[in-house]
């Protein structure tokens, strides 16, 4: 027996954005709706700290250009050429910590900054020069001595501490699950020893591929530390849509990438479900969705092209009621000028030591 009465289910009367066909398949990828509804507003008065993997560099630049108060706790000297400054890690993130690819790396930085911990073992050498293994890209030619390198790190940690004390919104882009750690100290590094500096030795360093539980625990601890500094701090997490340059997992790099991004995305979802002060912005979905057919990627199918970056940031800014490049922050005039320079920026300008692994392909 059938009934003419329509059956009511949880799927009845859902808006078009909840159905794949109407939300994705039948829409142009530049014209999708309801991809992101901010959990809390972010305004020009909120002091924002930005950190994360390479893709986070775009986020910081776009926010600055659009008038948000992005903290720069270690700004470059005023007269320094911008490109030179960026090569030395200035003006990329809210302090000169370089790319932070993993949750564990972020957690280490927060703990080290709070305790002022500088470990001698975290400095590697190459050609007689000393490199901070926790941010090897910020001094591309290294430093003269271990003492100097340790002094730089100590200063940097002080800056990170000061940055966190000013932060209202902490934006973090999770990039990788894979990392290399020192077997003795357990410290995790952003690059494999031997890529930028140092020497690989399988007794001293071990590969680690963090799983969901480990990353979730790390991120919860990150939140706890940051909340202790500023109980009102809120968080915006994203997942980098940039695939792995290489994997040491023993799997095909595509499979390893899917694992990595899936775990990171799942952690973000879990964090959002647990905490009201954590929001997730779907930059990963915007770039990597099947609907875009890869057209937001450069021909290497890895780097996100300027159109992709622009679209991601426009989606973010539109959701927050801000026009891209509006430059209307506290420091509006200067930010607008910087924004001008940022317009049309190629993805080539992103400082990404992970990409160095391609040289080993």
């Amino acid at each position: 027996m059938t009934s003419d009465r329509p059956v009511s289910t949880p799927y009845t009367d859902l808006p078009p954005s909840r159905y794949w066909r109407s939300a994705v398949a039948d829409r142009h990828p530049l014209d999708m709706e309801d991809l992101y509804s901010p959990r809390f507003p972010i305004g020009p008065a909120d002091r924002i700290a930005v950190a994360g993997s390479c893709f986070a560099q775009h986020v910081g630049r776009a926010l600055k250009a659009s008038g948000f108060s992005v903290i720069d706790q270690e700004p470059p000297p005023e007269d320094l050429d911008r490109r030179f400054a960026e090569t030395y890690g200035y003006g990329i993130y809210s302090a000169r910590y370089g790319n932070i690819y993993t949750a564990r790396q972020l957690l280490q930085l927060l703990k080290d900054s709070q305790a002022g911990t500088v470990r001698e073992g975290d400095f590697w050498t190459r050609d007689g020069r000393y490199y901070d293994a926790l941010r090897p890209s910020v001094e591309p030619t290294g430093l003269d001595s271990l003492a100097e390198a340790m002094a730089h790190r100590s200063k940097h940690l002080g800056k990170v501490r000061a940055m966190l004390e000013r932060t209202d919104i902490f934006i973090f882009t999770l990039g990788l699950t894979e990392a290399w750690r020192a077997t003795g100290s357990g410290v995790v590094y952003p690059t494999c020893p031997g890529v930028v500096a140092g020497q690989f030795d399988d007794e001293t360093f071990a590969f680690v591929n963090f799983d969901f539980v480990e990353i979730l625990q790390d991120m919860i601890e990150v939140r706890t530390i940051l909340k202790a500094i500023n109980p009102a701090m809120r968080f915006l997490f994203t997942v980098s849509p940039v695939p792995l340059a290489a994997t040491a997992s023993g799997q095909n790099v595509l499979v390893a990438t899917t694992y990595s991004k899936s775990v990171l995305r799942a952690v973000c979802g879990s964090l959002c479900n647990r905490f009201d002060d954590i929001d997730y912005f779907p930059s990963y979905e915007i770039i990597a969705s099947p609907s875009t057919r890869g057209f937001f990627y450069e021909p290497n199918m890895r780097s996100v092209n300027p159109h992709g970056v622009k679209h991601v940031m426009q989606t973010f800014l539109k959701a927050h009621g801000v026009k891209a490049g509006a430059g209307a922050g506290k420091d509006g005039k200067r930010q607008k000028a910087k924004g001008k320079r940022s317009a049309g920026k190629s993805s080539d300008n992103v400082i990404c030591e992970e990409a160095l692994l391609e040289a080993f392909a």
Partner: protein
Amino acid sequence: MARAICVIGNSHIGALKLGWERLKGNYDHQLSFLGVPGAHFRKLAVQDGKVVATTQISQRYFSKTMDTEAIALESYDAIIVVAAGLGLLKTMELTDRWRPYWLLDDGALGASAEFDLVSTKVFEELVAAKVRKSFAHKFVSRISQQGAAAVLYMPTPLPSSDAKLRTQYTNPVLGLLTGAKGRELASVYFDAVEKVMRSERVMRPPAHILVDGAMTDSRYSRGSVRLDSESDHPEHDLQHMNADYGALILEAALDRLAGNSDWR
């Protein structure tokens, strides 16, 4: 062979002019001196192959020191630019905030210390950026672009070693210069000037007139003259040099130019 040389500079040109009075019997060259002191030097412009004054005051200095209204660059075999407002003390004021590790004392190493630590590479580039932005660099570049056959830049003299007699410094850079790292600081400065203005155009002060590689021997500053002063050398003036200095540095410049293939 007799050459026509124009020496253009700020107050530091006085020492060279007096030095030339001692030297000119040994040379067939014709030297002309244009002195425009202090901030008025920035009111000189280089246009249509000429150095001209753009204000009444700078015009007055043209008349007073050279008895002309403009310097046609093509009339000279070489132009020597003196100081032109670029100096180590002013440039290194950046050390008020930015310092490389080797310029910190132990007490400044804590995270709360007042200085921002930069690597030597960044520090060197920062000093070079200051030089690049200077009027002196722009002036020298324009002169060479607009027809001067040969251009030589003489940096502002390093401060007198009398600075070491002082126990307190109103200028912190002077304190650094007289300290253990003065030589390194001076070296970074001159390297930057040479990098930006091209080393073949820059006359470093001869090593033998320096004390600790960072100060000019006080023998060359006592009794110094300034372009705009008839009075004796003021005791507090550590910047200006005397005729001995002028003669010595000018002689070195003429030797350098004699080996320059750009002489007409």
